[in-house]
C-alpha cells in the first residue's frame, strides 16, 4: 500500500537524530506548558516560532506539533494533584483525578492518564494515514449540524450533575448566562460588557475555570487550618490489574469520542473530554461513585482529549483548514516555511508531510516515556507542606491568568470566580456543568445564528439535514428517557414506545 510505504519513508526521516531531538524538545516544552496553568500550547508555540525560522521546515514543524499535543499530557498533572486544571480540557479530570490523589492514588491516576493519552493519540494519528474520506465526512458538519451536535452534548450536562439535578441545572444555566457576555455573534451588539473592552470577547474561560476550580479549592481548604489533605501514603505509579481492566473500555470509547470530535473543525478538546466523562458515567454500573475517585473518570477524558487534539490535525493536513486557533498557529508555521498544508502538501512535499505524521507517533511514545517516570517526582510535590504549596500554586495561577492574554483584568476575573467557586462548593452546587455550558453555550449560539442566516430564519433547516435530525432526535430521547421510567410498569420496557406490550 502506497500510504504504508510513504509512512515508512516518513519514519526514516523522523528518526534522524536531529528530528528526534526536536521532537523531544517539543514534547518537554509542551508538557511544561501544559502543566503551567493558564499557559496553553499557543503561548508555547508562539514563543518558539521565531526560533524555527532558522530550522529546516520539517524539524520546525515536528517541534511545534510536539508542543501542541504534548500540552495535552501536561495539563493532567495539576488537575490530578492540585485540582487546578492545566487547561480547560483538563477540568473534567479534576473531578475524579483529584479525588484519587486524595486517596493516595495520584500515581495510578497520572499513569492511566499517560497510558490513555498514548493510546488515544496514537490511534488518532493512524487516522491521519487514512484521512481523506474522514475529512469529507467531517466537512458535512456545517453550522446546522454543529448546533444539533451541541444540543446533544448539552443533554449530557445532566450526567455531570451529581446528586441533585436541580443544582446541576442551576450550575448549567449559570454557565450559559456567563457565556452570553461579550459581543453577540451576528449583530455585533455588546452584551453585559459594562463598557469594558476586555469583556468584548466574553469572560475568558481559562481565568474562569482556574478561578472556579483552582482558587475555589484553595479557598475551601483555607477554611480550616492547613492540614495535609492527602492522608494515606502516596503510592507509586503502580496500576493494579483492576485499574487496567476498568480503564480498558473507557480508553477505547474515549478514543472514539475524541477522534470524532476532533476531525470536525471547530469543536475543540473540551467538549470531547466532557462527553467522554458523561458517557462513562452513564455506562457505568456505579454512576453514583463518579466524583469520588473512579479511574474511569480519568481514563476516558484523558484519552479523549489527546485523541481529539491529534485528530484535529487531520483537517489541517488534508484540506489546509485549521480546526482551532491553536492548530492555526501550526498552519502558520507551515506557511512561514513556504509549505501549503492541504492535499498539495502530500503531492509536492510528501517527505515533509509523512515525516511530521511519523514524528507524531514518535512524539506520543516520547511523551509516554517522559511522563511515566516523572510521576514520582510530581508526587513528591504533595509532600510539601500545604501552606507553602498552595501559596505557590496561587502564584502560578496568577501568572497563568495574566499570561493568557497579557491582561491584568483576567487575574481579577480569576480571583472573582475563585470566590464564586468557593460559594458554589459551600452550597453543594457542582462546578462541572457550568464549565461545560460556558464553553458550549457561545458555540451553540454562533452555530444557531449562522444556521438561521443560511436559512434566512427558517427553523426547518434543522430537520432537513439528516445528520442534524438524527442528533436532535437522539438528544430528545436522552432527555426524555428518565421520564419514561415514571410511566406505569408493564407498559414500558426500556426505550419502548407507549404501545409496547411486554
Amino acid at each position, binding site marked *: 500500500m502506497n500510504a504504508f510505504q510513504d509512512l515508512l519513508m516518513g519514519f526514516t526521516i523522523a528518526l534522524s537524530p536531529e528530528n528526534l531531538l526536536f521532537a523531544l524538545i517539543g514534547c518537554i516544552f509542551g508538557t511544561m506548558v501544559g502543566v*503551567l496553568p493558564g*499557559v496553553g500550547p*499557543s*503561548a508555547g*508555540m*508562539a*514563543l518558539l*516560532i*521565531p*526560533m524555527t*525560522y532558522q530550522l529546516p521546515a520539517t524539524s520546525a514543524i515536528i517541534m511545534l506539533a510536539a508542543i501542541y499535543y504534548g500540552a495535552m499530557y501536561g495539563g493532567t498533572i495539576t488537575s490530578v494533584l492540585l485540582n487546578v486544571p492545566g487547561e480547560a480540557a483538563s477540568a473534567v479530570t479534576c473531578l475524579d483525578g483529584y479525588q484519587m490523589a486524595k486517596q493516595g492514588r495520584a500515581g495510578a491516576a497520572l499513569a492511566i492518564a499517560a497510558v490513555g493519552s498514548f493510546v488515544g493519540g496514537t490511534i488518532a494519528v493512524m487516522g491521519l494515514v487514512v484521512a481523506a474520506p474522514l475529512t469529507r465526512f467531517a*466537512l458535512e*458538519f*456545517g*453550522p446546522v449540524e454543529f448546533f444539533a451536535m451541541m444540543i446533544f452534548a448539552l443533554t449530557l450536562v445532566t450526567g455531570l450533575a451529581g446528586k441533585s439535578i436541580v443544582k446541576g441545572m442551576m450550575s448549567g444555566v449559570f454557565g450559559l448566562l456567563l457565556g452570553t457576555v461579550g*459581543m453577540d*455573534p451576528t*449583530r*455585533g451588539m*455588546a452584551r453585559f460588557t459594562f*463598557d469594558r*473592552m*476586555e469583556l*468584548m470577547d466574553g469572560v475568558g474561560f481559562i481565568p474562569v475555570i482556574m478561578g472556579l476550580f483552582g482558587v475555589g479549592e484553595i479557598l475551601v481548604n483555607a477554611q480550616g487550618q492547613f492540614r495535609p489533605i492527602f492522608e494515606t501514603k502516596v503510592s507509586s505509579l503502580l496500576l493494579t490489574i483492576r485499574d487496567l481492566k476498568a480503564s480498558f473500555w473507557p480508553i477505547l470509547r474515549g478514543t472514539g469520542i475524541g477522534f470524532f470530535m476532533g476531525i470536525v*473543525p*471547530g469543536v475543540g478538546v473540551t467538549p470531547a473530554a466532557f462527553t467522554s466523562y458523561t458517557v462513562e458515567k452513564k455506562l457505568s454500573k456505579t454512576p453514583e461513585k463518579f466524583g469520588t475517585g473512579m479511574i474511569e473518570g480519568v481514563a476516558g477524558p484523558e484519552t479523549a482529549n489527546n485523541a481529539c487534539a491529534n485528530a484535529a490535525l487531520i*483537517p489541517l493536513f488534508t*484540506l489546509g*483548514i485549521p480546526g482551532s*486557533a491553536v492548530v*492555526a*498557529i501550526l498552519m*502558520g508555521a507551515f*506557511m*512561514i516555511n*513556504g509549505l*501549503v498544508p*492541504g*492535499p*498539495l502538501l502530500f503531492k509536492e512535499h510528501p517527505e515533509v508531510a509523512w515525516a511530521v505524521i511519523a514524528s507524531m507517533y514518535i512524539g506520543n511514545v516520547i511523551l509516554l516515556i517522559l511522563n511515566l517516570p516523572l510521576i514520582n517526582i510530581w508526587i513528591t*510535590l504533595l*509532600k*510539601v*507542606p500545604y501552606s*507553602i*504549596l498552595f501559596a*505557590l500554586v496561587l*502564584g*502560578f495561577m496568577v*501568572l*497563568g491568568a*495574566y499570561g493568557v492574554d*497579557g*491582561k491584568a483584568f483576567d487575574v481579577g476575573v480569576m480571583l472573582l470566580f475563585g470566590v464564586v467557586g468557593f460559594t458554589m462548593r459551600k452550597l453543594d452546587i457542582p462546578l462541572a456543568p457550568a464549565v461545560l455550558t460556558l464553553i458550549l453555550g457561545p458555540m451553540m449560539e*454562533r452555530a444557531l445564528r*449562522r444556521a438561521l*442566516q*443560511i*436559512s*434566512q430564519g427558517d427553523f426547518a433547516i434543522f430537520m432537513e439535514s439528516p445528520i442534524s435530525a438524527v442528533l436532535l432526535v437522539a438528544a430528545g430521547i436522552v432527555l426524555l428517557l428518565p421520564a419514561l421510567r415514571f410511566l406505569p410498569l408493564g407498559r414500558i420496557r426500556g426505550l419502548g414506545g407507549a404501545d409496547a406490550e411486554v
Partner: protein
Amino acid sequence: MKRLVISILVLVSLLAAACSQAAPAPAPAPTQAPAQPAAAPQPKAAEPTKAAAPAAQPTAVPAPPKVDFPAKGKSITIIVPTAAGGPMDMGARNMATELERQMGWSVNVVNKAGAGQQLGYTDLAQGKPDGYTLGLITIENAIGLYLDTQRKAVFKQDSFMPIAMQTQDPGAVGVKASSPYKSLADLVNAAKANPGKLAIGTIGIMTSPHLAAVKFQQSAGVKMAIVNFDASSEREAALMGGKLEANVGTVSAFATLEKAGELRTIAVLAKQESAEAPGVKTAEAQGHKVYSASTRAFAAPAGTPKEIMDILVDGMAKVMKSASYKELAMKVGQPPMYLGPKEVETFWKETEADTKANMELAKSELK
C-alpha cells in the same frame, strides 16, 4: 528532601515568571549589530532648532545631537492585534527580523488579540509616543471599529501616525471548485432563481468583507443569505462542505485552497487584477462596483516626535525595498507594497469615507 523540593519549586516559579513575561512572544535576540543605528541612511536625523546647517557636516558648531534612536539596549515593540501565527503576526515578525538584520535594531513582536483587534489598537493609541511602541494596523478593520459607535473605541485616524504600508491583500469572491459558478454573473443568476437562498460567507460584522458582501447583494439587486463567521477557517470549511455557495474573503485567504484545487476565485474586489490571482477578473469588470481589501500598515501613536518618525520611516522603507524582506514576505503570501506615511494617510481618509457609506447600507440590511 523537603528542602530540595521547595527549592525546586522556587526555581520553577522563577522560571514560570520569566516565561510568562516572555509569553507575549518576543522576536529572537538581535543579531550582531554591525553598525550603530541612525548611521548611514539618516541624513535628516535630529536637527534641533540650532543654526540651520544644511546637510553638510558642521565643523565649528559642535555636532548636532543626533537622536539616539533606537537607543542601545532598548527594544522596539510592535503590537500585533491578532493571535500568534496568523497573517498579521507573520507579517510583523518578518519586518521585525529584517529590521534587526538590516538596521541592527532590537525589535520584539507582542500579540494583543481580542475584541476584533480593538484591544491591540487601543494599546497602540495609548502607547507612549517615544518610538519604542509601534503597531501593525489593518486599516479597514480599524476604521470599522471606530465608526461603530457601539464599540466605544478610544481611537480615530488621528490617533495614529503611519510609518509604512506593508501589504494590501485584495478582497476576493471564491466558490467551491466543483461548483458550476464561473463568474459573478453565475452567482447573481442563481440568486435570482432562488431569492434569499444563496448563502454567502464572510468574517466578522461590519468588516471589509462583510460590507463588500452587502454591497454585492445590493449591486445584484436580489436578496441573498449573508452569513457571518468568526474565522476564515470556519468559513472555508462551510464552503467546502457545501453549506455555502460563495465566500467573500481575500486573495491570500483563499490561496491555500485555491492551490489545492478545492476553491476557485471568481472575482477580485480591487481596481486592478491581482498578480496572486492571475486571470481572475475584477468585480468592477464584471459589472459590480464592489471593493474590499485588507491593507496593513505599521504605525506609531500620535505625538511621536518627527525625528524619531523619520528614522522609523527610513528604516522600514529600506527594509521593504530589500530583496531579503521580499523573500520572507512572499513566503507568507504577502507581496510587499510600500507606501510612505503621507500616501497611507490619504488612503486611510478615502477608505474611511467609503466605509462610512457602506456601513449605513449594511446597518439597514441588518435590521
